[in-house]
């Protein structure tokens, strides 16, 4: 379980936590080891979003990190922290809070990040996309749902394009969770949680 004070292993039987080592995180820019997101992919790699993108290799039990390199324009964007993770085939979608781009895509094969409409990544339509991303989730149809403080964004996998789905100008959406029944659950830090069916 990721928290604002490190990575913890939670035992649902005893309801107790064990803190795990997070020495892959740069303590200078993230002294409290804040974890923004976790994702386990089909290869059993545990992806960790923090001030950078990291994954735990299940074979070696070592972390590999993707962080910003000022000399490399294909690295994770400058000042990107609070990285949100979603894996889609050969791509890793990264949502960020303050990178000026909101969304970046890591091409696994090339180990390069793509961002913004000018990249024309696989002809994706970037005209509408969130600037600040709090969560990314995939529904059973392969479509992606993005939550920003402003509202809910939708990426249509078939049409390869973004759309602004619902505007929430007052409350601060923090999370979303599609289920297998066609629902999208939305969590709000303003004190609300909404279920769309």
């Amino acid at each position, binding site marked *: *379980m*990721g*928290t*604002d*004070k490190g990575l913890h292993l*939670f035992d649902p039987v005893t*309801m107790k*936590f064990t803190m795990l080592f997070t020495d892959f995180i740069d303590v200078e820019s993230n002294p409290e080891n804040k*974890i*923004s*997101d*976790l*994702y*386990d992919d089909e290869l059993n790699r*545990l992806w960790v979003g923090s001030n950078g993108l990291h994954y735990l290799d299940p074979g070696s039990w070592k972390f590999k990190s993707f962080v910003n390199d000022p000399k490399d324009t294909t690295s994770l964007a400058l000042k990107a922290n609070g990285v949100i993770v979603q894996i889609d085939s050969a791509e890793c979608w990264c949502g960020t809070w303050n990178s000026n781009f909101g969304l970046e895509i890591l091409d696994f094969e090339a180990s390069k990040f793509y961002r913004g409409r000018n990249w024309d990544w696989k002809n994706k339509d970037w005209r509408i996309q969130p600037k600040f991303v709090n*969560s990314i989730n995939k529904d059973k149809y392969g479509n992606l749902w993005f939550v920003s403080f402003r509202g809910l964004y939708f990426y249509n996998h078939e049409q390869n394009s973004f759309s602004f789905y*619902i*505007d*929430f*100008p*007052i*409350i601060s959406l*923090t*999370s*979303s*969770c*599609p*289920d*297998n029944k066609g629902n999208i*659950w*939305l*969590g*709000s*830090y*303003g*004190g*609300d*949680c*909404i*279920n*769309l*069916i």
Partner: protein
Amino acid sequence: MAWFLRGGLYQFNIKSKKSIVHKHNPNDDKSLVNNAINQLYKDNHGTLWNTTDNGISLLKSMEYIKRSKMAKKERQLFKGLDY
């Protein structure tokens, strides 16, 4: 479309345009533990985990089956995974 919400858990049906509201009730241990939600996660058993500013609520079959209040330093939970 915009909703001005005042706290709790809203179940909104797009087709019927009707909603059901769930709220934290301090006198009910089976209610949502807190209305400020940091993350939602649905595990392989169909349980929705709500990580809030005051611990975790587990929602299964539209009932909160378990909740855990936490120490202040551990309240900011973000996401969990099950294997």
